[in-house]
């Protein structure tokens, strides 16, 4: 399989994601510039962390107009796994591929620290190698990570078990402790914490590995069935 890591002007975890994927899966990874309008050659797409367009106005507000976001939407529609990490999650909500919005942290500060997450579902291409209820350690680094959605949307997320991860201790005021959510087809995941920063012992946690392994297993299975 082949991965695309999309690079927006101001992305800064693009190479981190690339390194992590290579390390964990050994798969080929391309860094794809934001003006690309065709991602059909890729099996999985990563929107990495960073400050696209400086996060000016609102995080992700400008990036979502990049040509590549239309291409991402197309591949998502076709069922390919798309994961938005941190700024990538913000771009996914701004562009409507995921519901809700990410607002400035309740305490108004940027926060970078290790957090504990509860895996809420393993019914997704991203979480199949975790056990539901399992607590994992993945760091966060964001200033605008407070997930917000209207009550009907939240109700739907809960009903359809589309909350993928919850914070054990809420670091930013997210509604319902939400750290990551899935789209209705479960092939688009947005999450604020950074799994690419938890893939080797000296990083202090290796719990992010299984996200990339899960995607890899999911895609390879699909490819061998096809």
């Amino acid at each position: 399989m082949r991965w695309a890591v999309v690079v927006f002007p101001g992305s800064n975890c693009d190479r981190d994601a690339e390194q992590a994927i290579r390390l964990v899966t050994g798969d080929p990874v391309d860094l794809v510039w934001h003006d690309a309008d065709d991602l059909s050659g890729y099996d999985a797409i990563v929107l990495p962390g960073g400050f696209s367009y400086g996060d000016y106005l609102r995080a992700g507000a400008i990036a979502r107009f990049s040509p590549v976001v239309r291409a991402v939407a197309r591949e998502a529609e076709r069922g390919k796994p798309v994961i938005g990490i941190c700024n990538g999650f913000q771009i996914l909500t701004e562009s409507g591929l995921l519901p809700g919005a990410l607002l400035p942290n309740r305490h108004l500060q940027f926060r970078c620290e290790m957090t504990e997450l509860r895996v809420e579902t393993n019914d997704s291409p991203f979480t199949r190698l975790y056990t539901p209820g399992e607590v994992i350690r993945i760091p966060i680094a964001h200033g605008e990570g407070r997930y917000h959605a209207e009550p009907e949307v939240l109700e739907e997320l809960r009903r359809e078990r589309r909350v993928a991860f919850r914070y054990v201790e809420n670091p930013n005021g997210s509604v319902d402790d939400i750290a990551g959510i899935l789209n209705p087809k479960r092939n688009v995941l947005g999450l604020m914490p950074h799994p690419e920063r938890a893939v080797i012992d000296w990083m202090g946690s290796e719990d992010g590995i299984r996200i990339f392994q899960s995607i890899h297993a999911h895609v390879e299975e699909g490819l061998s069935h096809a």
Partner: protein
Amino acid sequence: MKQFDVEVKVWLKPSVFDPQGHAVHGALVSLGFQGAGEVRIGKFIQMTLAAEDRQAAERQVEDMCQKVLANPVMETYAFEIRERGQ
């Protein structure tokens, strides 16, 4: 083409918690401004715009707000347009 001065205000919907407003309210009260009630903080955007006429300008600004300047999931907006030299 006519020149317009545009002012856009964007603020959070009432249902969305505004921690900035909350913090500023606390600050004001602790500084002795006892009368300060709820504070909400939004954005104030100034822009110049060249457009055919007032109607075209309004249409464009409306469009900008919908697409870029505000996020309807959590925000509302209002704007004023003034023609230059009038």
